[in-house]
């Protein structure tokens, strides 16, 4: 038996050698993500909420990509005028009816998530990066920098995010890129607050004190020891943030700050449908809205699931109940 154990130990030593290779901060986050997902596969058992959310979001991303790549997949073109009869209620040929420019609503809806998804993902990624870096620095350095940054972030946070986003888009001009900048700017304080609060906790722990005593520089402590400890909190917040971003983008498009007209877009299609509301064309508004709700719900469910996963207290509570 002891003979058998020997090679096994050898085998188990080689990954530990890998561990001693110098890691860049990016690879730490990457490894953490890998560990997190492999742990996630186990934890996904029984996480019905998380699973439903993931299925919804992945399905919507696939649907949007396919519908934009092959516009004629439903048999009707989403942007071509006079492709169908005018303002028809849902029927066998047109499952969700047709609009005033004689287009099939169903094929427009399949492709209509394009702007929402791109803007939501990019904006949340941007604000996550900016907000958490500011939060790490502000929380760790402290002093007047922290005070000024916190006040500024609180000021932005207290201002209605929807109004801020509208004003920013109006200043930048409409379209995808301005929407990304505007939505990203609006969400920076959210990440700032979350990471700063976490950093303030981590900063006081004994192990940070020990590392500091060993003589590590502030930058090293932030990147290697403080930042990785805030990743869990950021992940949970970002899912809820995506859900909110989908609604914000939809509202911006609804108010006319989104993609230029022929492009299919849920928010813009609802605005169009508003003109025919009095004539009872309910299908123009109902279906794009349902798509927004389901997608936003998907992100929200992922957020709920992740919160359960990363917050052991909440998980225990749920099991007990």
């Amino acid at each position, binding site marked *: 038996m002891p003979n058998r154990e020997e090679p096994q130990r050898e085998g188990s030593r080689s990954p530990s050698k890998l561990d001693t290779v110098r890691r860049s901060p990016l690879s730490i986050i990457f490894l953490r993500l890998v560990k997190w997902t492999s742990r996630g596969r186990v934890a996904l058992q029984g996480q019905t909420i998380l699973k439903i959310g993931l299925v919804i979001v992945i399905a919507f991303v696939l649907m949007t990509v396919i519908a934009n790549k092959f516009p004629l997949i439903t048999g009707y073109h989403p942007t071509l005028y006079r492709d169908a009869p005018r303002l028809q209620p849902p029927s066998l040929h047109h499952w969700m009816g047709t609009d005033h420019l004689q287009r099939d609503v169903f094929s427009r809806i399949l492709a209509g998530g394009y702007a929402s998804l791109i803007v939501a993902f990019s904006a949340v990624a941007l604000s996550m990066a900016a907000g958490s870096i500011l939060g790490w620095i502000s929380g760790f350095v402290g002093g007047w920098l922290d005070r*000024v940054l916190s*006040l*500024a972030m*609180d*000021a*932005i*946070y*207290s*201002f*209605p*995010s*929807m*109004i*801020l986003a*509208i*004003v*920013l888009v*109006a*200043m*930048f*001009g409409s379209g995808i890129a301005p929407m990304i900048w505007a939505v990203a700017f609006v969400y920076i304080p959210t990440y700032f607050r979350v990471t700063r609060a976490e950093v303030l906790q981590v900063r006081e722990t004994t192990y940070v004190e020990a590392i500091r005593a060993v003589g590590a520089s502030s930058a090293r402590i932030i990147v290697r020891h403080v930042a990785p400890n805030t990743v869990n909190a950021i992940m949970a917040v970002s899912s809820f943030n995506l*859900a909110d971003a989908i*609604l914000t983008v*939809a*509202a911006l498009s*609804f*108010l*006319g700050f989104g993609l230029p007209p022929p492009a299919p877009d849920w*928010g813009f299609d*609802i605005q169009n*449908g*508003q003109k025919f*509301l*009095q004539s*009872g064309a*309910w299908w123009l*508004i*109902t279906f*794009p*809205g349902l798509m*927004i*709700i*389901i997608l*936003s*719900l998907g992100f*929200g*469910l992922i957020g*709920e699931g992740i919160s359960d996963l990363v917050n052991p207290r909440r998980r225990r509570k749920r099991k007990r*109940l």
Partner: protein
Amino acid sequence: MSRILRYVSQRLLLTLPMLFILLTVVFLILRVLPGDPVSAMLGGRNVSQEVMESYRVKLGFDKPLLTQYVDYLGGIVRGDFGNSLRTGRPVLYELFIRFPATIELALWGMLVAVLLGFTSGVIAATRADRPLDHAIRVFHISSFAMPLFWLGLMLQIIFCVKLGWFPVAGRIGGRLAFSFHSITGFYVLDAILRWDGKALLDILRHLVLPAFTLGIALTGLQGRMTRASMLENLNQDYVTTARSKGVPERLVVLQHTLRNALIPIITVFGLQFAVLMGGAVLTETIFSWPGIASYLVRAIEARDYPSIQGAVVFIALFISAVNLFVDVFYSVIDPRVRY
């Protein structure tokens, strides 16, 4: 009493730097961030360089940034928000006319949210993990995920177009609008003051759908928080004590637990008001409600720069005032807060 006064004045002094930073952020967004307001104002129209320059001079954009900043703050202190480019009237005057409409809508929206949110939250917490609890939680989550403008339009389709119960737009019906003269700008209050039953009924009918639309946006948030807070409090020792000394369950929930559970919810009332103001932009647009939020959207569409700046500053001032009020109110209802 003097201690409360001291606390209020302290909070007031703390609000000033906050307000200053908020106004600075607004200034930075409107003047310094990339994107030229003048070319945005004349948006795509083919205008000569001279016309652009004349607008720049008219709006003071030709001056150095620091001078603009001082002018901007000075204008706010004096209450001078400039003149609207569309109507030529002072922006502050236009905002004051529309302000009561927004407040009225926001208050009724808040009322809907509080009634629906607190009730559903308490019911869900007392029946934790039973079917009703799950149903209410699904309702809360979907009210988060629902685009407000979509809800408003769906309500219009159902209740205005199909059923014809409520009017689609405005604050008061066409014929009554001519005979009804406002005193305070708050129409419900005006109708009561004038003892005009017919007008009151009409005004309330106009209010139902917008208030409901706006309120639903907050219901999920408040309901979830109420549920979580109630669950936490229901496990506390004082609840067990109350039950063991024989207090009826209804009183345990409504008098003992709810009072304590509401404290953390009231602390975030200020933030909820911000959500409400954001929702008001969409609600006012859909229901043609003549408030400051729809004024801002129309100012943006018309590229009316002084109006945009005025409305944003006005909203910032208002939000700060609400936050201050919430803090003071909180210190009054929770004796644990030291003055």
